[in-house]
């Protein structure tokens, strides 16, 4: 393991624009060394008929100086039930090992017993801060296998709702990031504005969270009366509130001291570990699936990909604030260009007949009943569909054997991959920066464990 002498401890100050060289180099080498060392240790242990699952002791550090601290799973700053094993040498974090699975719900297995139409209720509970993104991703995958066309209005509603959901998710991320570092006012502000969006969601979908609103074939219902006024209010009030956040945090010396130069990760490391979303964009790489692999007609709207430059906690916070602005831009464009028409596909194999037809025709009633009990058959095949979730690339891998339920459904969860960045960005940092690093990744444990 790459050792740094104690004189190298860098206290994060207010005026430290560039990370010291040793931090970047030490992070990289340390990570590789850790992987190699751990593998060897584990092999040795397994030969002794004992599987070391939780922790492998690094014997290059003196016992007197080493301390192993367990953090979580019941801890207020681990964003749910994340557990960390932290190996400390004094105040310096030498190694970190995230332990997951405390929220494993067996959702991918449950998906195999639900019909394609019911699947939305399942996936929406994975990443509970971005339920609509999960639904959209799943629906797009099913529609890809079905090969149905989605009407323009349904696509616009999907973009409107998912971009609003991105705003609410980033508000929670910024709020909890602030709370973890000690800016408690940010917590109150973030949740205050999130409530505006949740009220609109409740009006539209009937629920504040876990909506099951975006379904294969379109959306569950049309937008409610007066939605333009509601969305307009949301844009006006959140834009005003963003000014408050900037006053509170942007140039705040304490905030900058706690976040600048902390938890640095490079673009190369991000790509090597499959890390996407704001964490990747904060390193300066403008990778956004809305631009590179557009979905739901999002390419028609004008927006910018927000990037940072240093890849530290502060840049990730800046990227999220910038993305709130850009998402509101998209929402405003959708509001002005909302097409008229149907909100779900006219393909009667996928979407049930309209209410009027059920009153008139016995066959329509039977068809409606069969769609909601048996579900529809999806052609044999497999597909992968990815969208840009608030945390990064959210993907759905779907295999159909031609029946009414998926043979296999797997979710590529951005939080799961991003969590792998934790050992890299925290190696050789100070123990006080642990919660700052976790919060800046914005992991949702429901997304990690599923």
């Amino acid at each position, binding site marked *: 393991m790459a050792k740094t002498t104690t004189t190298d401890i860098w206290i994060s100050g207010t005026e430290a624009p560039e990370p010291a060289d040793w931090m970047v180099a030490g992070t990289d080498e340390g990570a590789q060394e850790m992987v190699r060392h751990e593998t060897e240790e584990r092999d040795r242990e397994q030969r002794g008929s004992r599987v070391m699952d939780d922790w492998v002791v690094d014997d290059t550090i003196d016992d007197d100086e080493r301390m192993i601290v367990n953090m979580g799973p019941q801890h207020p700053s681990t964003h749910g039930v994340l557990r960390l094993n932290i190996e400390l040498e004094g105040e310096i974090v030498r190694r970190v090992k995230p332990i997951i699975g405390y929220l*494993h*719900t067996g959702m991918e297995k449950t998906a195999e017993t639900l019909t394609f139409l019911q699947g939305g209720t399942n996936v929406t509970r994975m990443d509970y801060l971005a339920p609509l993104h999960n639904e959209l991703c799943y629906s797009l995958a099913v529609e890809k296998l079905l090969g149905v066309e989605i009407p323009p209005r349904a696509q616009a509603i999907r973009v409107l709702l998912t971009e609003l959901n991105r705003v609410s998710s980033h508000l929670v991320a910024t709020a909890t990031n602030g709370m973890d570092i000690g800016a408690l006012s940010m917590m109150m502000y973030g949740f205050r504005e*999130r409530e505006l969006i949740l009220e609109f969601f409740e009006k539209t979908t009937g629920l504040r969270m876990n909506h099951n609103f975006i379904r294969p074939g379109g959306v569950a219902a049309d937008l409610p009366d007066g939605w333009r006024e509601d969305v307009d209010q949301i844009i006006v009030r959140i834009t005003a509130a963003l000014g408050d956040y900037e006053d509170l945090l942007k140039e705040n010396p304490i905030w900058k001291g706690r976040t600048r130069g902390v938890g640095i990760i490079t673009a190369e490391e991000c790509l090597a570990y499959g890390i996407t979303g704001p964490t990747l964009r904060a390193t300066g790489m403008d990778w956004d699936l809305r631009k590179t692999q557009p979905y739901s007609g999002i390419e028609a709207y004008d927006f910018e990909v927000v990037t940072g430059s240093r890849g530290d906690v502060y840049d990730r916070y800046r990227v999220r604030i910038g993305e709130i602005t850009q998402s509101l831009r998209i929402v405003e464009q959708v509001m002005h260009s909302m097409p008229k028409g149907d909100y779900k596909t006219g393909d009667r194999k996928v979407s049930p007949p309209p209410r009027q037809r059920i009153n008139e025709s016995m066959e329509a009633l039977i068809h409606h009943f069969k769609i909601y009990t048996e579900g529809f058959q999806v052609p044999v095949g497999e597909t992968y569909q990815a969208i840009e979730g608030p945390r990064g690339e959210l993907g759905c891998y779907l295999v159909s054997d031609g029946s009414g339920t998926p043979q296999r459904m797997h979710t590529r969860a951005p939080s799961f991959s991003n969590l792998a960045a934790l050992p890299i960005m925290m190696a050789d940092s100070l123990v006080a920066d642990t919660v700052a690093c976790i919060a800046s990744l914005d992991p949702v444990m429901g997304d990690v464990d599923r």
Partner: protein
Amino acid sequence: MAHLTGPPQLLTTTMGKAIRWAQQQSMWPATFGLACCAIEMMATGTAHNDLARFGMEVFRASPRQADLMVVAGRVSQKMAPVLRQVYDQMADPKWVISMGACASTGGMFNNYALVQGVDQIVPVDVYVPGCPPGPQSLMHGILTLQDKLVSGELSR
């Protein structure tokens, strides 16, 4: 001598009533956020819904300082021993609210991974329905607990 006028400056009560009143008015919950319900629990505690009106906004990170455990979310088999340990660490008297369908019954996830109802592990006083229950539902559950406490039904 203004204090001699007006209503009598004397209050009589019983020891039990006084204790129950004190327990009701300063019940501190332990943070036990697990899943979606935890977000709604946080929303209940923040400015818009303001749980502080009921003297319960002081979410304690340490179970030693908490009187109430709000089990907010689905409890996996892996989390169950942790939950029981946190409950055991809480000082008496203590109460449990099971928040949401998953904590109460396993909800829509009837599979290998989830505990089908947290009452298999800890005694539950109030069940809050919903998936997830909104802040109003959680507040109603908390007020129900307080009512039952004052009436003596759940006093310990």
